[in-house]
């Protein structure tokens, strides 16, 4: 959809006042659910997501088992009330694709070989959606996996860059997503900068892509620091291990 909306002003400020390389506000709470083995509640701008991790447990149905390693079942789901027009409950094609790419990204950082025939279930519920829910969900999933005590090589983290009004910027907001030129969500392993997830829609020159990728990696590192602080806060405030 095209529009006359001006997404970035003459001072380089965006609609919500952010600078081009500025993230929206991120807030993370760890271990918020009673039943789940690990959980995380995350707010990222207007996005509100809850993640619960169960496992490792025997993968069912049996034909999904891998005799050499665990599998990750991420299940990304939007609550019916999380968007302007009510969303029909249950998985649709979009949510199944996102579940697949998130599962694949998480598998890279988990020590899967420790748990043959097992599944690790990562339930991602989007309660309020405001552009960038897959990045918010994956970032919260990283925290919930750590909270569940799943052995990880690294805590995965996700962020998007994009292009609006011809400028490469970090972490698109709602209008920027609707009326922008390109969106590039990625996820990385922050310790190595390896890229775990990458999707791109829109139009970028090779130079713009290089710049956007670098900016998104930087955004991932900012989000990664917030992840780590939230996890530390929980375990410092809790004298006894759960």
């Amino acid at each position, binding site marked *: 959809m095209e529009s006359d909306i001006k997404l970035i002003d003459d001072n380089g400020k965006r609609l919500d006042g952010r600078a081009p390389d500025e993230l929206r506000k991120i807030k993370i709470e760890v271990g918020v*659910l009673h039943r789940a083995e690990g959980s995380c509640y995350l707010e990222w701008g207007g996005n509100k997501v809850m993640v619960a991790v*169960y496992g490792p447990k025997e993968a069912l149905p049996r034909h999904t088992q891998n005799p050499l390693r665990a599998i990750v079942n991420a*299940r990304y789901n939007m*609550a019916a*009330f999380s968007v302007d027009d*009510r969303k029909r*409950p249950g998985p649709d094609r979009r949510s199944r694709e996102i579940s697949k790419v998130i599962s694949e990204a998480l598998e890279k950082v988990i020590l899967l070989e420790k748990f043959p025939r097992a599944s690790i279930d990562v339930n991602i519920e989007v309660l309020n959606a405001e552009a960038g829910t897959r990045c918010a969900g994956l970032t919260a999933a990283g925290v919930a996996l750590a909270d569940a005590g799943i052995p990880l090589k690294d805590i995965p983290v996700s962020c998007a860059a994009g292009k609006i009004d011809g400028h490469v910027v970090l972490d698109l907001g709602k209008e920027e997503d609707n009326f922008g030129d390109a969106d590039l969500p990625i996820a990385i392993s922050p310790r190595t900068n390896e890229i775990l997830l990458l999707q791109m829609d829109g139009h970028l020159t090779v130079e713009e892509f290089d710049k956007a990728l670098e900016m998104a990696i930087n955004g991932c590192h900012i989000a990664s620091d917030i992840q780590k602080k939230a996890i530390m806060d929980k375990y410092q405030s809790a004298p006894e291990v759960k």
Partner: protein
Amino acid sequence: MTITPAIKRDYLSKLAEQGKRADGRTFNEFRKIEIETGLIPKAEGSARVKIGNTQVVAGIKILIGTPYPDTPESGAMTTAAELIPMASPDFEAGPPRENAIELARVVDRGIRESKIIEVDKLCLEPGEAIWMVFIDIHIIDFDGNLFDTSSLAALAALHNAVIPIERLRPDLEKLQEKFPSVKKYLEEHPTDYPLPLQEPPISCTSVKYNNVIMIDPALDEEEIAEARLTVATDKNGDIRAMQKGLNGSFTVEEIKKIIKASIDNGVKIREELYKSVGK
């Protein structure tokens, strides 16, 4: 099919014989109730309710729709409840099973049959345009008594809900070109206003095992329960809905006792509901 560990059953039964419950409550006592409203900006109304560790988020979406042919001047409502795998390792993804269907239907009837939503005030143009109210219940943490937690969350979200004049103004303005009554409606309702509601009944669930009856079962208690009875009562102490569950039975005396406890707890829960929505 889960086989409840005999040891847990024995332990809880022995406690019950001594008049006690595992978490220290009396038989007629609810767990702690927390209600937070308005947490979902995208929803027209929302609430997060905790009863003990059981946690439910309910969201209300209100959209413009067309009325059913047999009620051309009445708004419509729908309730959906999902037992999503987030809330328990025993909940599976996929189409709703018997338990989720019963839950959604009991919550729906509790709201529909007691006419909490004033659907006759939700008509925009007879036979053409009405407000449709969607109540979606998201169970995110499961430690027993979904019936009461879900129905309380639905009520709190309904009390938090507004008719979204602002968000749907473009659609309403298109409608008023066709229907003069919508024009008048927009003059009378220039901006968002609360969803019109009646006094709500409050739902209280009790279970029975080893001939002991206790209200607001935690998951452990629910797992060994033989029979379950949900009773919704209104401000006047009248009964507005009941649903018995599980393959055990009740005597007439037990039912009367449960009704009494439901009325008593209903009074307190109603106060908490009103407090949370600023009434």
